[in-house]
């Protein structure tokens, strides 16, 4: 009889919704992260026995539409991962909850300033950085030494000199730098280093004919004009790793994911011959700034379990979990204290990212940014190919971007009569 009672009581409690029933949190995460994060969940559920996390894994290629259709269809999860350039869109939709009252000032201190800043819109925090990325210089140490440079470039002038020396090395097709000409990131990084605002008047208009952007753009085009970088688009580089190993190019501006890739895909003989370094700066202010990238965790405004959702975010943000996640994925921790662990402190190639992460800035935080970025890529490619002059390309870019921002201007006018 006792046994039966023992079995019945939880069943009865469950049936009338007693406190023994677990609250199920829905958590959407993308790509590899979505798969790997599941292995952290048992620990979370052990610490919070009243909670159960249902992780849904979403492929990166469909992530953006999945989140927006879920919003449109009132089917948002409680917690979700989102690329930090997507935050402005979800703020416009009022789809994410503010985290201002949840994050303590002390916790906030621990985040890279430039990164957490991407999550702040109109002075309010809408997401918490989960992992971070930025772009910096990957280079072949041996080729730089052969060209007479024992250290990576610290200024734009040194950078050009290094490229010139590499181009002058004997042995055929050699380039100092690989710049896939259909990417917007490098031109934008250079412009940000020059202090360009990219957009002006509270992001009402494009600002691409400003001095700062123009100088950066000219520097970028110059690299191609002087033949220091091959005029190829990303798709035309058949095998990046092979080309890097063969010395076709000696430097490449890319992100942390390539540390893992390079370690796996470059031949063994190459492993002692490449390194990473922060971006060169236009002046003596080394290191130059780079892009604040990465992914954040956010709570859906529609969630009825916001407090529990925050517990999950807090858990994933603990330095210990951040480290565990780094070990599983190679994704860089968003909290500085996690970087103190020997695993990271001794990884020299990764440490360059630490230095760089202290010097990152955000791209304009407006929903139109992705479209603007694709326009930058489009006109940059035209200018590199010589189809448009520098002036024509920048004028066309301003014109297109002004058109993209037309709705934003209308909304701003409407809001402030």
């Amino acid at each position, binding site marked *: 009889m006792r046994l039966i009672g023992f079995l019945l009581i939880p069943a009865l409690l469950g049936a009338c919704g007693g406190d023994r029933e677990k609250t199920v949190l829905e958590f959407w995460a993308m790509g590899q992260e979505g798969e790997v994060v599941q292995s952290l969940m048992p620990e979370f559920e052990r610490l919070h026995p009243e909670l159960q996390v249902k992780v849904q894994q979403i492929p990166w290629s469909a992530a953006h539409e999945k989140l*927006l*259709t879920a919003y449109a269809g009132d089917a948002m999860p409680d917690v979700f991962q989102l690329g930090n350039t997507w935050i402005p869109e979800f703020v*416009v939709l009022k789809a994410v909850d503010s985290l201002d009252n949840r994050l303590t000032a002390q916790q906030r201190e621990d985040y890279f300033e430039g990164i957490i800043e991407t999550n702040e819109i109109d002075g309010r925090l809408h997401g918490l950085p989960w992992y971070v990325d930025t772009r910096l210089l990957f280079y072949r140490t041996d080729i730089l030494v052969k060209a007479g440079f024992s250290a990576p470039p610290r200024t734009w002038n040194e950078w050009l000199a290094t490229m010139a020396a590499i181009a002058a090395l004997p042995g055929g097709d050699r380039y100092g730098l690989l710049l896939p000409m259909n990417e917007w990131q490098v031109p934008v990084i250079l412009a940000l280093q020059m202090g360009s605002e990219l957009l002006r008047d509270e992001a009402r208009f494009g600002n691409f004919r400003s001095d700062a952007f123009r100088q950066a753009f000219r520097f970028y085009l110059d690299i191609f004009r002087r033949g220091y970088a091959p005029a190829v*688009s990303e798709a035309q580089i058949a095998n990046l790793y092979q080309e890097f190993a063969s010395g076709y190019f000696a430097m490449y501006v890319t992100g942390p994911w390539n540390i893992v890739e390079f370690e796996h895909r470059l031949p063994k003989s190459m492993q002692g011959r490449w390194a990473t370094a922060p971006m060169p700066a236009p002046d003596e202010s080394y290191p130059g700034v780079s892009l604040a990238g990465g992914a954040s965790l956010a709570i859906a405004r529609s969630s009825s379990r916001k407090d529990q959702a925050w517990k999950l975010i807090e858990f994933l943000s603990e330095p210990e979990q951040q480290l565990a996640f780094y070990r599983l994925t190679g994704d860089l921790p968003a909290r500085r204290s996690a970087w103190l662990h020997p695993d990271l402190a001794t990884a020299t190639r990764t440490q360059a990212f630490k230095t760089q992460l202290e010097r990152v800035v955000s791209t304009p935080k407006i929903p139109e940014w992705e479209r603007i970025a694709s326009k930058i890529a489009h006109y940059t490619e035209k200018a590199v190919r010589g189809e448009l002059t520098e002036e024509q390309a920048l004028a066309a870019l301003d014109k297109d971007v002004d*058109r993209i921002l037309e709705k934003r201007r209308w909304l701003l006018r409407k809001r402030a009569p």
Partner: protein
Amino acid sequence: MKTPLLPANTAFWFLAPALILIVVFFFLPVAASLLLSFTDFDIYALGDHERLRFVALDNYLRLLGDPLFWTALKNTLYFVLVGGPLSVAVSLGAALLVNHRLVRFKGLFRSLLFLPVVTTLVAIAVVWRYLYHPRYGFLNYLLGLLGLDTVDWLGDPDWAMPAIILMAIWKNFGFNMIIFIAGLQSIPVRLYEAAVIDGASTWRQFRHITLPMLAPTFVFVTVITMIGYFQLFAEPYVMTQGGPANSTLSVALLMFQEGFRWWNLGYAAAVAFTLFLIILTGTVLQLRLRRREI
């Protein structure tokens, strides 16, 4: 038992359920789509309907100035004009082979060649992505055997569309083959018998009997194929996501990306309608042209 409970207009009750569904779930959305294409429905409007504006033909004008649209249109035309005729030709060839009077086990051959049509595209994409694999793929292996250079099928902007076309033909040719076979079988045998008596060669028989008699089938097949091929979406979606360098971005895929990835519904609706107009023009042109020929 007599049950004259039905109202006088019985036909209405037979038609109503299906027609109401078609009107509600097809005609109404099509009309709404047309309206949508005259607005600037975007992510702002999704969050708050007050932020929706009527913009007349703005979306269509923007479309004409959008290099991405032209790229998508160019790619789609490439697919229709190269893939379409090739696909019809392969179907006709297969039909002639299967239907040849000397061939035995016609039914078996027909069914086996038809098999790709019923398969699930997403599953097939998995296989073909592997066949196209630059290092381990079978196609490059075959090229190697023939002493040719290997190709990065889905990674090279020049080869990605041909790769999509090849897969699409493989997947679809069986459908048209069946229709051609039916067309061939409807040609009266006595015509051939008369031709043989007149001493006409096989080629002359094909040229002067088979082709003209097949003309209606031909019109049907080309029109259907063209309409289908203009709507190219799933193949590049699962194989390449429109890449590399937008070389397989089709108009339908562009619509999907604008609509569901970025939620520029107004603009996406304009893309969809433009696609519709292009298809309509193509269909009418083709029917006119054929009618004059026949």
